[in-house]
Each structure stands twice: as structure tokens, then as C-alpha cells.
């Protein structure tokens, strides 16, 4: 997993609520048996018309908006547990998602893949959308160590929460398996006294 410390980038706005993982990566693209290449089909059915032409109305096809931060409406990543959604967002080139609310499984999947889910207040999310709208070249800084997201050229910033263990993993590029493999003897001890009926 790649390390995440500080990210300074412009952002791509997607002000839609309840974006489910079927939109992020439709099921028909889940047939791959590796983790790579899902970025091409990120938001496939919004990004392309039925005739497979790029849909000019969709933000990823709009040259005004670029960057490594995806900003989305509340309850981002609901629905299917497919980790392919996090892979697709990462593979496309995003390193962080900003929203006012995440579905649980998506949040976990993102963190397990070095994609930082930054949860901000609804008011701050609105500020971000407004700044991108006014000037798409606005930069945002996400400082994981300080747990802070700020809007460049303004005084505006907000603190965000993250599980301390997950924070350490993200900063160091560790994953849970490395951690759990070191717990083998504790797990074996537990198993001896644990009864499954």
C-alpha cells in the first residue's frame, strides 16, 4: 500500500448524494481477477453514453476539473461491498475522497487501499463545492498527520477524524494483514478456549 502523508491538489466535484458502488464501478466490470485497470471503467455509465461516447456533461469529461481529490455528496459508497470501487477510484488517479458522510464498508475498503476518505461537515463540504465552482484551480491541502483539510488562499480549514490505528497504517503504508499476521500466537491461544456451537 502507498504511503499517505500530505496531499495538495485541485479537486473534482461530484455534488450528488447516495452515490452507490454500482455507479462507481458497474457489476459487469467485476470479472477481472487482478486489482489493476478498473480506473477505465470508473463511473462508466455516467461517463459514457449508451453508444459508448464520452458524455460531455459528466465531470470527469470536463477539462475544467482535474486533480487527485474527488469531492462527493453525502453517503458516498453505499450499496455493494465491492472493493473494486475503491480500486477504481485509486486507479483513476484519485488519492483522497471528501464527503460529509461515507457508507461503512466503502470507508474501510478505501482505507485498506491507501485512498483517504476525508469526512467533513456539511457546511464545509458546501464551501468546498462553492470554491471549486468559482475557481476550479483552487487547491486543497489534506494533512493527515494534523488531520486537517484546508482551502488554499483562504483561512478556511477543518479538522477531520480518523481511527488512530488506520492513520498510522496510511502514513506508513502498512496494511491490516501485516498487523494480524504478527498476532498469530494470540489468535491461536484464543482459538483454544473458543467454542463454536
Amino acid at each position: 500500500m502507498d504511503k499517505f502523508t500530505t496531499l495538495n491538489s485541485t479537486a473534482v466535484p461530484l455534488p450528488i448524494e447516495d452515490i452507490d458502488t454500482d455507479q462507481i464501478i458497474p457489476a459487469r466490470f467485476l470479472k477481472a481477477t487482478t486489482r489493476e485497470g478498473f480506473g477505465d471503467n470508473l463511473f462508466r455509465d455516467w461517463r459514457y453514453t449508451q453508444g459508448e461516447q464520452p458524455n460531455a456533461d459528466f465531470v470527469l469529461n470536463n477539462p475544467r476539473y482535474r486533480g487527485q481529490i474527488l469531492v462527493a455528496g453525502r453517503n458516498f459508497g453505499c450499496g455493494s461491498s465491492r472493493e473494486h470501487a475503491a480500486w477504481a477510484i485509486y486507479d483513476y488517479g484519485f488519492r483522497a475522497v471528501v464527503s460529509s458522510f461515507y457508507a461503512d464498508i466503502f470507508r474501510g475498503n478505501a482505507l485498506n487501499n491507501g485512498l483517504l476518505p476525508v469526512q467533513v461537515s456539511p457546511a464545509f463540504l458546501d464551501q468546498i463545492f462553492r470554491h471549486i465552482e468559482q475557481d476550479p484551480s483552487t487547491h486543497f491541502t489534506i494533512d493527515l498527520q494534523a488531520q486537517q483539510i484546508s482551502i488554499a488562499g483562504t483561512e478556511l480549514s477543518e479538522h477531520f477524524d480518523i481511527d488512530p490505528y488506520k492513520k498510522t497504517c496510511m502514513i506508513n503504508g502498512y496494511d491490516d494483514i501485516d498487523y494480524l499476521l504478527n498476532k498469530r500466537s494470540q489468535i491461536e491461544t484464543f482459538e483454544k478456549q473458543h467454542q463454536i456451537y
Partner: protein
Amino acid sequence: MGKTLFDKIWDAHIVEDVGPGTQVLYIDRHFIHEVTSPQAFDGLRKRGIPVFSTAQTIATADHNVPTVNQHLPIEEPLSRHQVDMLTQNCAEFGVELFGLGHPNQGIVHVIGPELGLTRPGMTIVCGDSHTSTHGAFGTVAFGIGTSQVEQVLATQCLLQSKPLRMRINIEGTLSKGVLSKDIILYIISKLTTSGGNGYFVEYAGSAIRSLSMEARMTICNMSIEMGARGGLIAPDEVTFDYLKGRPHAPAGQAWDEALRYWKSLYSDEDALFDKEYHFRAEDIGPMVTYGTNPGMGLVVDQHIPDAETLPGVEKALTYMGLQEKQAMLGQKIDYVFIGSCTNSRIEDLRLVADFVKGKEKASHVAVFVVPGSKQVEHQAKAEGLDQIFAAAGFEFREPGCSACLGMNEDKIPKGAYCVSTSNRNFEGRQGPGARTILASPLTAAAAAIAGNIVDVRTFLH
């Protein structure tokens, strides 16, 4: 202070508390399938480690399999490759597989319970969000991503933060024609698709107690659609009767011991919940969805709300080709899909067969019935349900996820309306441009006969 059912099970599986809010949670049962496991097995291979406990791991092929001619090689090359990978991975790592052609094959959340692999008090995970289904037995069961599938394969454990506890009480008696699917669609329409976020939900109350095991599974199945980590129901005599004699259920003295433990699995009187809701069964009618998430649902004789009153409704209605304030009754439909881990068990098929017996589908509607498992398929045939379906013009297929997510050939065409007993009406879920209306098996069967959305209650006098 007393403990909730959820706490009792969760706490019995904590290997270690590691830092604020994070615990190593032991997993009793791990189900895997072809779509979310290949990258996890690959991870084990790269690390050079085996599966920690093959005895607790069970695999099946379901998401990507065709529902016709399962005895022939899979035609679609990518699907075939994914199913073949599962077979190879299971052979290499020593995991038991109920693959295509196996008498136990089926949708992962259907076969676990029917084989007695799902039992009260367990922690159960699977790389699939509808793992919550297993909670109907009084288990802590939840969906995980592929990295976590790899964690469990590698260590039989997960790093977890403990969810909050919610209880949803439904008291009273359901009206005729109202099924457990309607209960859960009703709850989600009230709580929205994020109302359960961060919670593990216990369903309780007299209306829940009166349900069969299969009906309870339908409710727990859709817990994830309100954002909950999972849902569960305290085990009782209904649960024990269902389990007794199942292939993997304990027997003899082991059964008695298990029963003693299972009977301790309930929320104590003085247990505290972080949130609690109360609903009356009498308020619930047959439900249908009108939008593009499972929270956009209403009782079938109600009208679609004013688009301005709810966020996202306008976009959803444009996709669905429906109007605000429109009645759902009378809405013409093109397809009916009866299947998925929500409603593809033998009881669902019996209900449908009972309703359509002697009737015929509307000529413009295509109907397919996809059983949840090989066992359900056999049972349905043994009871002659397949004959009833055939006479009604319904196509009875072989088991798999099918048009629930349209990974195989079973897709709904662009713009077509499909009344579906599955669990998700997201844009494109049943195929690009497909328009899904979620409903119970009875409402779906009635729509198949009428050719449009009808209130099944009017047929049941």
C-alpha cells in the same frame, strides 16, 4: 447492566483490544465466491502463506454463473475464467467448493443456512454486503471487502471497530398479502439508505417473532440497504426447529449443548441500545420502490412524492421514466424477476406458485424464476412448482445471482421496467438503463399476471 444480543456475540469473539476503538475479532465462518476472492488468494500467494483455517471456509460459485445449461462449459470467457480461478484457488489452498454442478451449489447466503453452516452465536463474514442475511439466526454477520477477505483467509480474524447498537421493534399482526419483504422495504423507506450507518440492528417485536426463518432472512438480508453493518434476530424455537437435522447442524449430545448456549442469546431486559425505533405491523402494506435506491419506496396504493420534498428524487424519476405525484398502481411493466438472496428460497417459490396456479402471465411480460440453490431447485421440482410456473408462462431457471446484478447474461434491457424481488434498484443494477421496481414475491407474481403494478391485497379475498 445487561447486554444486547449483539454485544454477547461480538464480545465472545474479541481476541484482543488493540488501541482505541479497534479490536481483533475472531471469525467463525467465512464464505467466499468467485467475484471478490481472486485478488485475495493472489495476496496469500504473494505472501507465501496458507489459508489459516480451511475447515471454517466454504466456497460457492454464484454471482457470475449462467442460469441455463449449467452442465455445459460457461460460454462467456471472462465469467468462465473467474469461475475457473475459484476452482483452482480452492484446490490449491484446500478450501471446500460447492461449484457448478455440485448438489449444494447456490447463492452463498442461501446455501449457508440451508446446510446448517450458519448457526446462532457465530461471527460470519463474506466478501458480499448481503452477508447480513445470516443474522436471522442470531449471528453477527457482515459483508467485507476483498482486502478483508484476504485478512480472514490469512488469520481467521479481522481488525474491527465495534458498531453501535440499534433495535427496531415491529409489533402487531401483518395484513394478508403483506410479507417480510414489505416490512424491510417499509423500514428502509422510513429510515432512508443511510439511517442505519454505523449501527448493527436487532429486529424484535411480535411481528418478527411470528415470521418463519426464511422470512426473517429476507429482513436481515436488506439491513445493508439502510447502511447498517448488519442485522440480527434473537434465535428461538423457530430457529432451532429450522436447524435441527440440517447436514452441518450439531447432533446428539452436541445438539443439546449447542441448544443450551443458543438459548442464552437474547438481549437482556435492561440492555441499552444506542437507538431504538418502533413500528406497527398494521401500518405496513405491500411495498414497491419508485426510485433508484431502496429507500425510495411506498405502499403500493400511494403516490410518488413531490420531487422537491426529497433530495435525489428528481434525478431518480428521470432515470425511471416516472412522474412526481404519479400513482404506482397501473404502471405498466415488462419483466418480472423472482430470485436473489432476498427472495429465492422454497417458501418464496411456494408463495408465488400458490398465487399463480391456474393463472397465466400477461402476454407482454417476460418472467423468470431463479431458485437460490440447487436444493431449492430440486425441492421446487419435487413439489411440482416448476409445472405451475411453466403453465403460467414463467421460465424456471437454474440457481445463481442472475438478474439481481446482471453479471451473467440475465440482464434487463435499457428502459424496460422490471419488478424484482431482489434488493437493489440502483441505476443499471439489472443491466445498463434497466428500471427496477423492488417488491415482495407476491407483489411480483401479481404484477406478472396483471402486466402492471397491482395491489396484491385485492386478489386475496
